[in-house]
């Protein structure tokens, strides 16, 4: 299993086939996604002007993206004034190097981490091991994945693919805990005991960031378990890694996202804990704060007028839960820390549409549109999927097929001729995907005696 990152080890088709064979996974996933979807619908229904709110969320993000240079510089200035330090990282490697150098300066061998997909994107944990620094995940699900040497399969519920018995066995083996039953309450208690000591003794924490406000220099993290508060409050040194697209222009913009995110994500009115801080506060929390602004392909996406809206994403995971493909194959099939519909457009774009395996992701969709409907910042994912498909290499055989159909379709007379001949008609029909992959699970429709246009012509005579 891959330890993170965004480079799929294989094509989506192959990975999905494998995932579909795992019936436990499908059951866990089906149950989890159905539950969250139903909850999300009622959480959203509580907000009468939800559609206007989505438009506002999209608008604020678009404004930020249209003025990114000024906002990032303003953010840096505000954080610096408040006693923090801002770093800029072009690539994953640069970001990892910055974290490592801060750890080394403080002679830290172990850092505690708040769940952060951005840190998984840059494969931080693995990168830090080169400097003999161990990163300990403190989010329960991330801890489960880390102990199991497994990668997260969902943005919000990373261990969605594991059930309670699997987790109990894991904790017994890795934490030495003993349990009377597999009750989630007991399993959570074991994690609490194990991590409490880490929180009280760790000198340095690493986190992501849900957003940062340029106007004030305020950084925000939303969470549920309190591990975030522990990491953001108790260590002496805090390093937060944030994609450059996460900046918000104004302090007042925070309210739109505090309303959009929890309802779309955990389907709650509000998540249990939200922390916000600006630089360093004497006598309260870490006395050294670093924010790393990460590009890692984002500015390339920004340069694409159609792909750009991908950068509005607030990582809520609503699109995963509603996606009929994700519901069946799960997150690992996408081969990247960004799974589901958003991953299908974000991953290949972060890799500049140059990774052969990642380029199979835009095809991992029926274009059913459920993701677009659920997206709190109105990212038109189906449209971007279609757009990106053009940027991928096609096989010679496939290309030949489509060129043949194109030649027929671009010539009405030829098309009429093809339709006249039933057999040839059937061969045109085969381009709709007959052959084996079709007939393995589906029968062919009956081929009619005459086409519509033949009927029309006969009737006119």
């Amino acid at each position, binding site marked *: 299993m891959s330890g993170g990152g965004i480079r799929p080890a294989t094509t989506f088709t192959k990975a999905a086939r494998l995932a579909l064979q795992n019936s436990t996974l499908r059951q*866990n996933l089906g*149950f*989890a996604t159905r539950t*969250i979807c139903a909850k999300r619908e009622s959480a959203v229904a509580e907000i009468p002007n939800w559609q206007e709110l989505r438009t*506002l969320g999209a608008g604020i993000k*678009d404004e930020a*993206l*249209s003025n*990114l*240079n000024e906002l*990032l510089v303003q953010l840096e200035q505000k954080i610096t004034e*408040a006693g923090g330090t801002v770093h*800029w990282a*072009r690539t994953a490697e640069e970001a990892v190097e910055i974290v490592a150098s801060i750890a080394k300066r403080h002679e830290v061998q172990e850092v505690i981490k708040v769940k952060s997909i951005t840190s998984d994107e840059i494969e931080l944990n693995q990168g830090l091991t080169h400097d003999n620094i161990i990163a300990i995940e*403190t989010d*329960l699900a991330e801890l489960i994945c880390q102990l199991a040497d497994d990668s997260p399969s969902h943005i919000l*519920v*990373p*261990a969605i693919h594991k*059930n*309670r018995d699997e987790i109990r066995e894991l904790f017994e083996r890795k934490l030495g805990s003993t349990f009377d039953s597999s009750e*989630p*309450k007991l399993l*959570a208690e074991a994690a609490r005991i194990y*991590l409490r000591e880490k*929180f*009280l003794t760790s000198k340095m924490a690493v986190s992501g960031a849900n957003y940062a*406000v340029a106007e004030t220099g*305020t950084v925000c993290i939303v969470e549920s*378990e*309190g*591990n975030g*508060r522990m990491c*953001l*409050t*108790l260590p002496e040194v805090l390093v937060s890694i944030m994609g450059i697209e996460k900046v918000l*222009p104004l*302090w*007042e913009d925070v*309210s739109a996202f*505090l*309303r959009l995110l929890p309802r779309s994500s955990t389907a709650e*009115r*509000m*998540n*249990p*804990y939200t*922390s*916000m*801080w*600006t630089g360093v*506060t004497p006598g*309260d*929390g870490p006395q050294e704060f670093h924010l790393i*602004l990460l*590009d890692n392909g984002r*500015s*390339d996406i*920004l*340069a694409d007028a159609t792909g750009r809206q991908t950068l509005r994403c607030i990582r809520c995971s609503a699109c995963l839960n509603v996606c009929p493909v994700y519901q069946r194959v799960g997150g690992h099939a996408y081969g990247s820390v960004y799974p589901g519909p958003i991953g299908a457009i974000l991953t290949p774009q972060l890799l500049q549409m140059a990774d052969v395996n990642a380029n199979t992701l835009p095809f991992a969709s029926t274009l059913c549109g459920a993701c677009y409907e659920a997206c709190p910042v109105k990212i038109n994912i189906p449209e971007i999927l279609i757009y990106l498909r053009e940027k991928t290499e096609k096989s010679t055989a496939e290309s030949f097929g489509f060129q043949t159909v194109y030649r027929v379709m671009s010539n009405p007379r030829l098309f009429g001729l093809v339709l006249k001949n039933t057999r040839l008609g059937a061969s045109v029909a085969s381009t709709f995907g007959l052959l084996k992959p079709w007939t393995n699970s589906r029968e062919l429709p009956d081929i009619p005696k005459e086409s519509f246009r033949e009927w029309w012509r006969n009737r006119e005579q």
Partner: protein
Amino acid sequence: MNSKEAILAKIQAAQVPHFRANRPQRKELPASLDAFCERVADYRAKLHSVTEDQLLPTIQSLVNGRRCLVPLGLGFTIQGAQEDKPFSHRELAEFDVTVTLCAVGIEETGTIILDGSEGQGRRALSLIPDHHICIVRESQVVASIEEAIQRITPTRPLTFISGPSATSDIELVRVEGVHGPRRLDVLLVSHT
């Protein structure tokens, strides 16, 4: 060219056309205390509506003789409670319960916000002990998230609390209390 210059140059080169979001006018609405209470309780936090006179006895009975921690500037004395010296994190872990004030309550979501000013203490105080008792005055409750955001000072260390800590990471079964306080009592104090 350093990394900062390189990133800024790439963003510049992306030539994103100017866009301005259409932010709605802010509306001030009267807050419903009943709705606030209901929503706090929805998170399985315990809500107590008390008068100023009932406040101290209610706290005393909730603390129930356990080791109690209070921040500076709470405004009244709880018998047997210790003020933050400040204590080390290890020492904080020895306390059973913390009593604090708050900055704002939000009706829309049943959220309380702590901003670290007088009577609220630094963030570790309301985090490490397993039981948090939080005092909200009626006048502190606002209707919406917008109003709360407008009322608080962004540059203070802010903690939004909506019920006790929770996880749904195992089979989506909600478990209260992972790392933060497992018990949250909110005392809503009326004006009379």
